[in-house]
């Protein structure tokens, strides 16, 4: 039997790492049953796209066209649509006839059921058949009809879009004007829109349900959203199990959930969301997701029940009673986990990375990741979760910089605002009214604020200290309140015997003995559930996914753990992110679902006494712990912490480069505006500015003149003692080169050199990267390698490292160096078919197998990695590339040429190849002149060209016909807005004046409107040029599997 599994593609807001977890578990389950698996997923950074997981892997777009071609080629017997999020489900629905034609069976939940859960009208009708309540509502098919229907429903009301993905386009509207705007946007993505009663302030409750082919049906977990109806569940803090439901409510909703799932005929796993009236017994079923979801990943990690694994087994016709609970090893999977702890999920937002973005949160998802705190009290779990976010806070109560309270209570910072309001004495009833959060949670938060006050004393007595630790206060916070050092609080509590206990998450609350290795720490218990015999190696994981640090570091962590296990080492993982594969129950010998803080890592080290700790796989946070851990006597594997310091400290690193004659852009660390201005003037603008005092908002910017520099610094904050700004010469028009390598004791073992398509100035995480580099000189290639070798030797590197270079006029300069695995490690490893992390891990264990033979780096194929942006979810955000990273994920595709790989890669990010018309708008004469070549090429391909006034004039002067469109604010036809709305423009190419200049103008409006109407957008000259070249070259977009490219 052969089964095709569709992945979810790049990580984006609404579809993140949870589908790497679900896909990889499913593949594992299928493999165990001897089923051959074919995986389509262009997300090269995922773990599921590893040879150990699937028999055949296609790094190709998950869309109808490519998947149909793959089906024709692979002739699978069945297809799984439930493990790749909404992307896979939508693709599956689009394949309807194709699947029949090729006799591919949809395993588990049939397409009919999927459609009934996805289409609101069908869904409501279906549930009405069994008397189950859904919100009152009307489905409309046009803006006009919507406006008419609203009058009968009344305001406020909820606008919902079919085939939703992370709630895009959905939201609450309060009047006709808001409704009009909302409907226009919604109809850009969908043909049908539902208007329904707005259940303001009702509780939002979720159940995860599994059902097998024999009709055994149960709920694995229920969850309570802290934020009420009206907040997307991806934006809400969530606890499991529910805390404020009575036995009747719990089981009545459970009964309805099971009844609904049976009636719909779902087989496998699904999620059902309820609205529950907080003032009397009443409920509505909001939706059913007939697939694995973010919530099911959370439920799986919260309960230790392997939902995705079980769902895949059910897909093959297994039944729940016959499957063993792999956590206990003895009991069956046909049961409902009992928790004896509480988990709290909190989303992670990165809104400050975006310009002009709407920071209010609500029915549309904007968060990019999440963490899960576990404790035996709400306070313990909740406070852990805040530290897990890695946003620089020590818990719920923090000194986070806030705007006006009334506003911030509705933004991503609302919990910090609640803390502040409670501190100011706002009553719980008032906060309930504003936030809709149940008083149960607000009372607990109030308790934390009160305890914080009690902790403001130099010598907190033992009972208070114990109480504080049970309430989840960190040593650092207690120290800050007491005016002591963190280390002294730690020493004091250890002296008093206040240490956390290691507890198992065993799915059955200790009722039977269990073998689980799934662990957390708590101060509410005194005995460890596990023994600490054999020493292992502790690998620090990725923490929450965020912009700049994502699934690629989970891949690195997992690869490291596998390599350690292959060397016969006992493996211990610490991570806080429920969307990861590294937190799967069967990935390591021991898993600590814990915070990545010095305190907690030391606690784990006190218990486990590991042989060593790996800090170089999980991104920057664990890397930052290297020095403090070493200072506390923990052995760090790989490059010595003292050498890490030499790379991280700018002055030391700069001196090192100078000593070895390696060039770098001029820079200086300056502590006043005057000196900064003087230095910038001396080296000449533009300059890159990085202030050390940024608390929120952009951390970096490029300034083209003094006023730009002053503007940015004023926005960032102000100079105060001990704070400074780093000013670096910004080199325009330079090429950026990416170097990834592994060394052992300073000797280079393997490396990869990639090339950015975009010129320097675009963050490397947002860049489109060609591997191997194709368009740099052989000489540059050689120089890059030599410099890397020099640095590796000078820093005595052992393990993974990454260096970024810029090249201009045959001069190579180093701009950054990290002594840890980088974002591109999975990309280079999979492109070459050489596991860089395995090599690095062996090197760190002192077991290096020597340099990898050079011929490995001669590849037949070219790989291109392209960024995935989620601008469509971030209302008002300026969709532009800057020195600050903005992409949420990435894909990579292979090809025989740069053009082929490039087109596949951008299509895999959702880009639609233009067929008919291209709109161009270019700011600045220099940019226009530089763009002539590619615009000419596009015109020659027969595209209908349109442009804004100045660009159109310029093109006409240069002999290119382009229709002039009026700008949005000009309100005259032909107008860009009308054309975009009417889908008469296939592609918008909008080149802003320069990187990072803040443009509050029509240029922004055009970009934003393109995103809002779902029209592909390009804002970079080099990308536009490559696209024009690629379209002209018309390469065949081959369907080939990864192994065929590796040869």
């Amino acid at each position: 039997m052969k089964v095709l599994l569709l992945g979810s593609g790049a990580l984006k807001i609404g579809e993140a790492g949870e589908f790497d977890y679900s896909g990889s578990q499913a593949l594992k389950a299928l493999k165990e049953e001897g089923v051959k698996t074919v995986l389509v997923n262009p997300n090269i950074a995922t773990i599921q796209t590893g040879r150990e997981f699937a028999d055949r892997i296609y790094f190709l777009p998950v869309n109808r066209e490519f998947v149909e071609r793959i089906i024709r080629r692979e002739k699978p017997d069945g297809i799984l649509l439930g493990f790749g999020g909404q992307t896979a489900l939508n693709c599956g629905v689009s394949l309807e006839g194709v699947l029949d034609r090729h006799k591919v069976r949809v395993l588990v939940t049939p397409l009919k059921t999927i459609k009934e859960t996805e289409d609101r009208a069908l869904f409501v009708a279906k549930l009405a058949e069994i008397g189950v309540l859904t919100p009152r509502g009307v489905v409309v098919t046009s803006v006009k009809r919507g406006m008419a229907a609203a009058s009968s429903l009344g305001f406020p009301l909820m606008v919902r879009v079919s085939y939703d993905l992370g709630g895009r386009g959905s939201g609450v509207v309060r009047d006709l004007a808001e409704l009009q705007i909302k409907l226009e946007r919604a109809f850009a993505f969908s043909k049908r829109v539902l208007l329904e009663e707005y259940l303001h302030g009702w509780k939002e409750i979720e159940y995860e349900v599994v059902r097998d082919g024999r009709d055994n049906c149960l709920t694995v977990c229920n969850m309570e959203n802290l934020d009420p109806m009206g907040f997307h569940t991806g934006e809400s803090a969530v606890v499991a199990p529910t805390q404020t439901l009575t036995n009747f409510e719990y089981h009545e909703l459970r009964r309805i959930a099971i009844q609904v799932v049976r009636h719909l005929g779902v087989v496998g796993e699904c999620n059902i969301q309820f609205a529950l009236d907080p003032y009397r017994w009443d409920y509505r079923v909001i939706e059913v997701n007939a697939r694995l979801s973010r919530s099911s990943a959370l439920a799986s990690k919260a309960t230790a029940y392997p939902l995705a694994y079980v769902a895949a087994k059910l897909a093959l016709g297994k039944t729940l009673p016959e499957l063993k609970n792999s956590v206990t090893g003895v009991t069956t999977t046909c049961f409902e986990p009992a928790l004896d702890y509480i988990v709290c999920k909190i989303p992670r937002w990165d809104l400050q990375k975006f310009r002009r973005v709407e920071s209010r949160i609500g029915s549309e998802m904007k968060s990019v990741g999440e963490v899960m705190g576990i404790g035996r009290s709400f306070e313990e779990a909740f406070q852990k979760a805040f530290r897990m976010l890695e946003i620089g806070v020590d818990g719920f109560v923090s000194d986070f910089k806030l705007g006006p309270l009334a506003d911030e209570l509705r933004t991503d910072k609302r919990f910090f605002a609640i803390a502040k309001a409670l501190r100011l004495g706002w009553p719980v009833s008032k906060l309930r009214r504003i936030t809709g959060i149940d008083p149960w949670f607000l009372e607990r938060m109030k308790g934390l604020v009160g305890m914080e006050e009690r902790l403001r004393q130099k010598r907190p007595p033992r009972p208070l200290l114990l109480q504080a630790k049970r309430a989840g206060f960190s040593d650092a916070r207690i120290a800050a309140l007491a005016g002591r050092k963190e280390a002294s609080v730690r020493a004091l509590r250890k002296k008093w015997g206040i240490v956390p206990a290691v507890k198992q998450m065993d799915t059955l609350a200790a009722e039977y003995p269990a073998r689980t290795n799934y662990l957390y720490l708590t101060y509410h218990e005194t005995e460890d559930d596990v023994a600490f015999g054999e020493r292992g190696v502790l690998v620090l994981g990725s923490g929450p996914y965020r912009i700049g640090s994502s699934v690629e570091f989970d891949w690195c962590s997992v690869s490291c753990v596998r390599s350690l296990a292959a060397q016969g080492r006992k493996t211990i993982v610490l991570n806080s992110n429920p969307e990861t594969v590294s937190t799967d129950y069967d990935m390591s010998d021991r898993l600590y679902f814990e915070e990545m803080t010095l305190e907690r890592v030391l606690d784990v080290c006190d218990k486990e006494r590991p042989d060593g700790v790996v800090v170089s796989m999980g991104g920057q946070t664990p890397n930052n712990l290297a020095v403090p851990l070493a200072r506390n006597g923990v052995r760090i594997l790989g490059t010595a912490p003292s050498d890490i310091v030499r790379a991280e400290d700018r002055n030391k690193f700069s001196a090192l480069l100078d000593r070895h004659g390696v060039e770098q852009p001029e820079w200086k660390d300056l502590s006043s505006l005057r000196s900064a201005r003087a230095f910038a003037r001396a080296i000449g603008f533009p300059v890159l500015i990085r202030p050390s005092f940024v608390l929120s908002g952009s951390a970096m910017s490029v300034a083209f003149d003094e006023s730009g520099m002053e503007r940015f610094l004023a926005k960032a904050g102000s100079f105060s003692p001990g704070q400074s700004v780093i000013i670096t010469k910004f080199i325009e028009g330079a090429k950026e080169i990416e170097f990834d390598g592994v060394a052992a004791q300073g000797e280079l073992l393997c490396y990869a050199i990639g090339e950015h398509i975009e010129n320097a100035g675009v963050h490397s995480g947002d860049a489109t990267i060609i591997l191997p580099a194709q368009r740099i000189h052989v000489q540059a290639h050689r120089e890059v390698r030599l410099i890397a070798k020099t640095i590796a030797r000078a820093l005595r590197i052992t393990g993974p490292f990454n260096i970024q270079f810029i090249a201009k006029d045959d001069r190579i300069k180093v701009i950054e160096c990290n002594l840890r695995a980088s974002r591109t490690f999975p990309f280079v490893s999979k492109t070459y078919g050489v596991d860089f992390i395995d090599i690095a891990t062996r090197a760190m264990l002192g077991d290096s197998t020597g340099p990898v033979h050079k011929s490995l780096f001669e590849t037949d194929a070219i790989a291109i990695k392209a960024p995935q942006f989620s601008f469509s979810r971030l209302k008002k955000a300026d969709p532009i590339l800057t020195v600050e990273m903005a992409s949420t994920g990435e894909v990579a595709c292979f090809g025989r040429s740069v053009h082929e790989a490039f087109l596949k890669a951008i299509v895999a990010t959702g880009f639609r190849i233009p067929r008919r018309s291209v709109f161009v708008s270019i700011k600045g004469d220099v940019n226009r002149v530089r763009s002539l070549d590619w615009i000419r090429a596009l015109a020659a391909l027969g595209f209908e060209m349109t442009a804004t006034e100045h660009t159109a004039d310029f093109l006409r002067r240069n002999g290119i016909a382009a229709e002039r469109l009026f700008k949005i604010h000009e309100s005259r036809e032909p107008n860009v807005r009308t054309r975009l709305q009417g889908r008469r423009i296939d592609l918008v190419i909008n080149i802003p004046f320069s990187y990072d200049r803040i443009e509050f103008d029509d240029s922004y409006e055009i970009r934003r409107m393109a995103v809002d109407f779902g029209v592909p957008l390009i804002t970079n000259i080099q990308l536009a040029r490559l696209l024009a070249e690629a379209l002209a070259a018309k390469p065949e977009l081959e369907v080939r599997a990864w192994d065929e490219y590796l040869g």
Partner: protein
Amino acid sequence: MNRRRASLVLEDGHVFEGEVFGEARPAAGEVVFNTGMAGYPESLTDPSYSGQILVLTYPLIGNYGVPPGTGPESLDGPFESGRVQVAGLIVSSLCPAPSHWSSTRTLDAWLREENVAGIQGIPTRTLTKILREKGTMLGKIVLPGRDTDFFDPDKINLVERVSTKKVLSYGSGRKRIALLDCGAKNNIIRCLVNRGVTVLRVPWDHDLASLDYDGLVISNGPGNPKMCGRAVEEARKAMARGKPIFGICLGNQILALAAGLDTYKLKYGHRSQNQPCLDTRTGRCPITSQNHGYAVKPELGPDWEAWFVNANDGTNEGIRHKRLPFRAVQFHPEGAPGPRDTEYLFDEFLEAVK
């Protein structure tokens, strides 16, 4: 709040320190646990817990407060009898500020009204592990300067203590169902009455021969089945009469003893709301609520067959006569607290009742 130290002392020498709540008084009994995450008003009023100090493994208790209480014979509210039945309550964290529209008081206040002691601040997972290995364990709640003796509830007839003293009638249906009350939970009565029958609730040792009924339910209840010989005797007489019988929990064990089968103590008792039980006739595996340390031995002789089997450990969870309309389950089809997957068993039973 009046915060006073208290400790839980186990007969094996373990001592756990915590804070007393409810009524500050010493208490003794058998210490048992349950891992259910919701349903403390139901559990605390369940007569099966009579004489027992209940440990709730789930760490946050009292979150949704307690709804208004009603008289002992009322079926209103989420209560399984007219009073708190446990001898004491052990929790990790007690919620001081509950939140629910139906709540009128805290758990603390309720226990004070009911004159029952509780301790919070106890590592309930550690305690659960000790109890599960021991099976049964005596224990006591001790206050500074106020001790009490251990008390073994198995030495007295608990069923007699919790059973109704007089015959009570509920509902108005044509079919008359006798409920032999060995400590019956209110929800068994609700489940029957809601199905349109008349329920005649009779004392545990009531002479069934003199009663006019169409079907018999033998209820749940506290303690060791071998302590209620007269109930077993009544069940045997009822079997001779041939009318349909449905036993629940203790009722299952009583029926088994009446049929000449035997019971034994489990290595690990079933004390949770998430027990999968395989229905041997359908192959389906519903989730059930359970609270028992004894089970019917798998040797069922020529006349009886296994009806339900626990999917986790393979122990017997229900028996069925091969020819006659006698059946019983070890779990709680009425839930409360817990899932209601097996409520259909009441329908099946009433179908058999002519």
